[in-house]
């Protein structure tokens, strides 16, 4: 698969009394054409901020302070504002957790989708309406013709998210960024939306950057997974490899603390402590304050990236040490 999006050494900072405070710190990853990459982490890990940085939508006073975001070789961070506006929606579209807050409550949903279409494509109202109707049908909205004239409050949460997906797809983007697309939905409706996203990716070949905290959703949808902790990547691997054999102690802890994986009667394994806030990030490995395997270099030295032959990447002194021990024996 060819690389479509390349994020290189991305750093996003917010000003603070003690200088610029990074919330995304030196992140690099690739997204291939048609691939689903999951960006996983708990709140405060910087996963949503990474997505907003790619689209240059970081809320002020935050800003992307260094790095590059190459879309088919072109650095989005250096595009003029007007051209960047054309990239958003047309080439990279985004859907959010709360479809209610992303839709205008006083405009019929069909008109909102038509507006999105006409913004990028100079076609007349009749054509825009028929394209919106086709999109509604494609994302599985029952009775699409009637639903074009519905207002957001007429629709359930699941239908609103389908409208958002229809709007995001209206310009046939190469990349769809989905930020916790099912978190606000009931589990039976979540399964519908996951099926829809999987089918869209298969049929249209849209690459998806899926932002989630739920490893079950990762398993359902992702090809590869990038795990973030406190602004940095800790592990990037194929879905199967990551879920069956996590290497980083944080990934291991995340998987173990899922209640359904604990056998009856046993105590739930915990990750002690809390995610530190950006002004309290340790100088060494960010996870060192909560890591059960923490040893001498972890608290003071940032672990370097280790990459194996299969392209699996991990940032951990302990993994490095055990790999060294293996190769020398």
């Amino acid at each position, binding site marked *: 698969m060819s690389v479509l999006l390349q994020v290189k050494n991305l750093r996003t900072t917010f000003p603070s009394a003690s200088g610029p405070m990074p919330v995304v710190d030196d992140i690099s990853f690739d997204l291939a054409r048609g691939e689903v990459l999951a960006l996983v982490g708990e709140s405060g890990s910087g996963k949503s901020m990474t997505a907003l940085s790619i689209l240059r939508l970081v809320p002020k006073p935050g800003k992307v302070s260094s790095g590059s975001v190459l879309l088919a070789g072109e650095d989005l961070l250096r595009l003029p504002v007007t051209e960047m506006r054309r990239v958003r929606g047309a080439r990279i579209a985004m859907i959010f957790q709360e479809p209610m807050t992303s839709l205008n409550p006083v405009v019929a949903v069909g008109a909102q989708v038509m507006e999105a279409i006409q913004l990028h494509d100079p076609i007349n109202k009749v054509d825009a309406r028929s394209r919106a109707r086709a999109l509604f049908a494609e994302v599985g909205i029952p009775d699409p013709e009637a639903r074009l004239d519905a207002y957001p409050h007429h629709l359930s949460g699941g239908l609103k998210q389908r409208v958002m997906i229809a709007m995001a797809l209206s310009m046939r983007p190469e990349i769809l960024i989905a930020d916790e697309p099912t978190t606000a939905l009931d589990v*039976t409706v979540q*399964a519908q939306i996951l099926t829809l996203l999987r089918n869209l990716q298969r049929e249209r070949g849209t690459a998806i950057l899926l932002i989630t905290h739920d490893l079950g959703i990762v398993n359902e949808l992702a090809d590869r997974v990038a795990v973030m902790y406190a602004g940095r990547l800790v592990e990037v691997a194929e879905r199967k490899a990551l879920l069956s054999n996590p290497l980083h102690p944080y990934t291991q802890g995340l998987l173990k603390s899922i209640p359904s994986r604990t056998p009856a009667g046993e105590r739930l394994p915990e990750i002690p402590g809390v995610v530190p806030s950006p002004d309290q990030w340790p100088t060494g490995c960010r996870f060192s304050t909560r890591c059960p395997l923490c040893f001498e270099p972890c608290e003071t030295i940032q672990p370097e990236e280790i990459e194996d032959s299969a392209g699996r990447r991990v940032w951990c002194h302990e993994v490095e040490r055990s790999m060294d021990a293996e190769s020398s024996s």
Partner: protein
Amino acid sequence: MRKDASRDGETLLRVSGLQTWYPIRQGLMRRQTGWVQAVSDVSFEIAPGQTFALVGESGCGKTTVGRSILRLESAQKGEVFFEGRDLLKLDSNSMRAARQHLQIIFQDPMASLDPRMRIRDQIAEGMRSFGIGRNESDRLARVRALLERVQLDPDTLDRYPHEFSGGQRQRICIARALAVEPRLIVCDESVSALDVSIQAQILNLLRDLQEELGLSYLFITHDLSVVRYLAHQVAVMYLGKIVEQGPTERIFDAPAHPYTKALLAAIPSVDPERRGGALAVLGDVPSPSDPPAGCHFHTRCDVVMERCRTQVPPLFELEEGCSRCFLAEPTNPGD
């Protein structure tokens, strides 16, 4: 899944025939035009030292059940026997006294803590109103012990809620509930907003407290994986009614009602060999102001029969628990 720790036949809370409907008022004269049937004919019991989980999707009425028990909503029908008295018949003074043994912890701890009050005062407030502790210094000692018990640093007692993380605030809410020595705590989505690593800590804490203090929990949640870890008994709700009830192990291993099956099948698995396992249920949850005729689930059920569209199924007894589905109807021995 948990072993049954209760003593036989003992009941701490018995809810029977609970009904809470909200009137829908429309127009200039605010005429009543219908009812939101939030909770209809809900009955269950909780034994001392047990966790009873009430599960279902949004709008199923699970939260209204919890709030009706505490009389934060007014139920129209039914009985709520707690420690031998029907809470729904108590006057407001006796109800206030009954609340000492009946506490609630919500999903959003920030919204249930007073942002302008030190946490020591929030935890001690309930003790003062119920006359727990001989004097202020005794109560302060209790606050310190409670903070330690929920694994917070007792020296943080002079701080305000905003100085704590989400998980720590939920610990404060637990300490505040424990301060008045409750016997039953209603946990309404108490771990749903927490990150999974923090959620595990709080679940373990709730379980430890139950074993130490013999507490009972009414655990209200949409998250079935949490239920499996914590609950002894489970009731599944759909559009205001309990559709299935039983011991946790039986509900997860041999669900009887098609809705319970659908709910369990919709949860994405983290087993890398089981991808595509999250099965969708058709359609959306109908509105509780206009529930479908017959069985409320028939519009989404994959094994719907003709009679389901018109006849309302009662709760049929199973070997363990019960199911509101005609498929669970006992066949006549002569057939």
